[in-house]
């Protein structure tokens, strides 16, 4: 490959405060991810409107039109094209960003499958939204969860700060040559995409010290490297290639840990990579969930702690790779676990939510495993109230005391 023409080097944006500083801004989760795209110097972004994710593209387009960010910004004619365009841009070596919500994510489903199959390190934002029909703007996790077995890494974030930080970490992990897998960051529709909070926005210099440039290496499609990508393989080779994806996903765990360690060293934050433990130390029962559910659950846990109940909360931050080891470690001594799924798994074992059944599977080899009770709550963006959480904790205690069948699934907050 010929050396880059330095005369046309990328413009970098200086933030007030100068190199090495972070600036505090009151921004939404979507705007936080737009900042991450700018700081990562993404080359190609494609947009298509659907609520609630599309706010990120509104912020991105503003940054571009104001001269703060230099990238190809393409408004596609469908989500399928949106994801196909960036997939191909990534194949020639460009860093890319994309996103969608609900049925939009599903309209792109074919593209999502091949993106993982092709080992394209796309980073996408899913503004989690209920699937049609009937229409609902609010959050459900079934959209992003649908790609869970295809080779996408999946992160769920709870705050705007975590959205920005995770997007930067996602680029580093996805583009690591040991991985080369796409990564989707799930942000709960409205609760995170549209809610503002104080966020530390790092400088470009800080991000550059953490995130190396994307180098597609020998897989880059270019006339200097006339390779044939994804020819028809049939039964001769497909299984070997599927196993390569499996091995990449297995390696992702270590690469994610490395990235969080380095992020902590450079930015002084990040926390435990895969799970967040909240008041877990002496917990008898633990509630488990993903995303912005953390907010009401933490308030409820503090309230119950005040009443002497030993309740903890565990937030799953990465769903793929699934944090099996961390969950076994964190939950093996607990009496009962109440999993609050903001999704559904019609016809699944025990008719439980997706997270609940994944957790049951992860805890199967543990000696004296906790009872795992599945709760379905907050669908379509319905608020999960503190009273709901207290009710869930009470039922989880009942399961611990054998007065509630832990193999049943309970819908919370449903009108009669």
């Amino acid at each position, binding site marked *: *490959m*010929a*050396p*880059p*023409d*330095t*005369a*046309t*080097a*990328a*413009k970098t944006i200086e933030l007030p405060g100068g190199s090495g500083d972070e600036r505090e801004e009151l921004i939404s989760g979507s705007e936080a991810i737009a900042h991450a795209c700018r700081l990562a*110097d993404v*080359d*190609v972004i*494609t947009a298509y409107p659907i609520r609630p994710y599309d706010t990120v593209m509104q912020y991105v387009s503003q940054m571009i039109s104001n001269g703060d960010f*230099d*990238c*190809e910004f*393409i408004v*596609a*004619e*469908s989500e*399928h*094209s949106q994801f*196909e*365009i*960036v*997939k*191909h*841009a*990534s*194949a*020639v*070596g*460009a860093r*890319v960003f994309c996103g969608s919500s609900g049925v939009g994510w599903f309209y792109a489903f*074919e*593209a999502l499958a*091949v993106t993982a199959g092709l080992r394209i390190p796309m980073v996408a934002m899913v503004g989690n939204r209920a699937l049609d029909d009937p229409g609902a703007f609010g959050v459900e996790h079934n959209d992003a969860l649908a790609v869970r077995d295809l080779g996408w890494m999946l992160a769920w974030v709870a705050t705007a700060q975590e959205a920005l930080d995770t997007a930067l970490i996602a680029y580093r992990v996805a583009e690591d040559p040991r991985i080369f897998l796409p990564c989707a960051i799930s942000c709960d529709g409205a609760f995170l995409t549209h809610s503002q909070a104080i966020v530390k926005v790092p400088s470009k210099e800080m991000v550059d010290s953490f995130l190396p*440039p994307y180098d597609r290496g020998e897989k880059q*499609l*270019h*006339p200097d*490297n*006339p*390779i*044939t*990508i*994804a*020819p*028809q*393989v049939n039964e*001769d*080779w497909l299984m070997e290639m599927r196993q390569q994806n499996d091995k990449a996903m297995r390696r992702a765990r270590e690469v994610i840990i490395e990235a969080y360690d380095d992020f902590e060293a450079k930015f002084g934050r990040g926390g435990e990579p895969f799970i967040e433990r909240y008041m877990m130390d002496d917990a008898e029962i633990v509630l488990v969930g993903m995303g912005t559910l953390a907010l009401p659950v933490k308030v409820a846990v503090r309230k119950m702690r005040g009443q002497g109940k030993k309740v903890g909360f565990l937030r799953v931050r990465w769903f793929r790779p699934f944090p099996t080891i961390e969950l076994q470690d964190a939950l093996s001594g607990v009496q009962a676990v109440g999993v609050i799924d903001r999704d559904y798994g019609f016809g699944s074992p025990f008719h439980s939510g997706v997270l609940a059944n994944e957790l049951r599977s992860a805890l199967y080899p543990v000696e004296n495993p906790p009872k795992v009770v599945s709760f379905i709550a907050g669908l379509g963006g319905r608020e999960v109230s503190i009273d709901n959480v207290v009710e869930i904790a009470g039922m989880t205690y009942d399961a611990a005391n054998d007065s509630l069948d832990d193999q049943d699934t309970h819908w919370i907050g449903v009108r009669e």
Partner: protein
Amino acid sequence: MLDENTDRNQESFEDYLSTQVLDPWKGPKKVPAEEYYTSGHRTCQGCESAQLMKLMAKAGGPRSIILGSTGCMYVANTTYYSTPWAVPWMHTQLGSAGSSAVGTAAGLRAMMRKGKMAKEPINVIAVCGDGGGADMGLSAISAALQHTQYNLLILMYDNESYANTDIQVSGSSPWGANSTFSPPGSARRIMNRRWKKNTAAMLAAGHPDCKYVATVNTAYPVDTMNMVRKALTIGGPTFIHSLDPCPKGWDYDPMYSHELGELAVETGIWPLYEVEEGKLKMCGKSRRIVSGQFKRKPVREYLTRQGRFAHFIDEDFDYFQAKIDDMWEKWLIPGVIPFAEA
């Protein structure tokens, strides 16, 4: 800031990526011997789409990236460990010819502008069949033709059916053709009652900023290569529609592929033309049909050579002939624009 020479669709002159200047080859003896589409493909004997791939790769030359959407030219053509491509090639999804070209061109443009890749004009060519182009991928191709900031060519190889999956009817199949989804039977002789989509003209008429749309046929290989070269040189998104006789789908002896291509033009079924920067030019024998120098041959001469029309009775031939006659005698622009002033 903008002077009269500024292309207002470009954000700035610095953004503008020039194209390779690929001058036309004046006759077969001037065509270079180098091939970029070589041995290794597994297409049928007499496959005109494979011929089109060879001509397209030769016309584009070594500094090209080819995107191939699902179809014959993927499944039968591009197999692991025996790729025929000596230029970089990547698979794209059935409906993604337009998106793959836009994405590739956008990636190159961004990286060259930002100094992440050496600046150089690279041809971006996406190929699709009639199923991928005229049916599933139409909206993505339409969108691609609006992105005037990217240099790309979408080449549709139209063998008039989903030929790779067992010959199923497409929106580009001719009226009445026998296919595995439109078999003539004892109760219904004609299953495919859709008239073939007028894809090239529809795209030319609908995308006035697109600088080049053409129809080709590989029975005229030098013309075909020169039209590919013109499409790649002119800049912006361009589209070429090729009618490719298919021995398997059309049911004829493979030795007659070129002859059928010529007959498609001579009967007036396949008009050859190019729309260049808003100007229509009829090409080859189609020009002589319009000027009256060449009398169209009866469609029966073309249709009776193919097994897919073997069930036709006289009324079917008459219907087909009348539709073709309308095309040249009643259309606003003969062979191209299918309506007339009221």
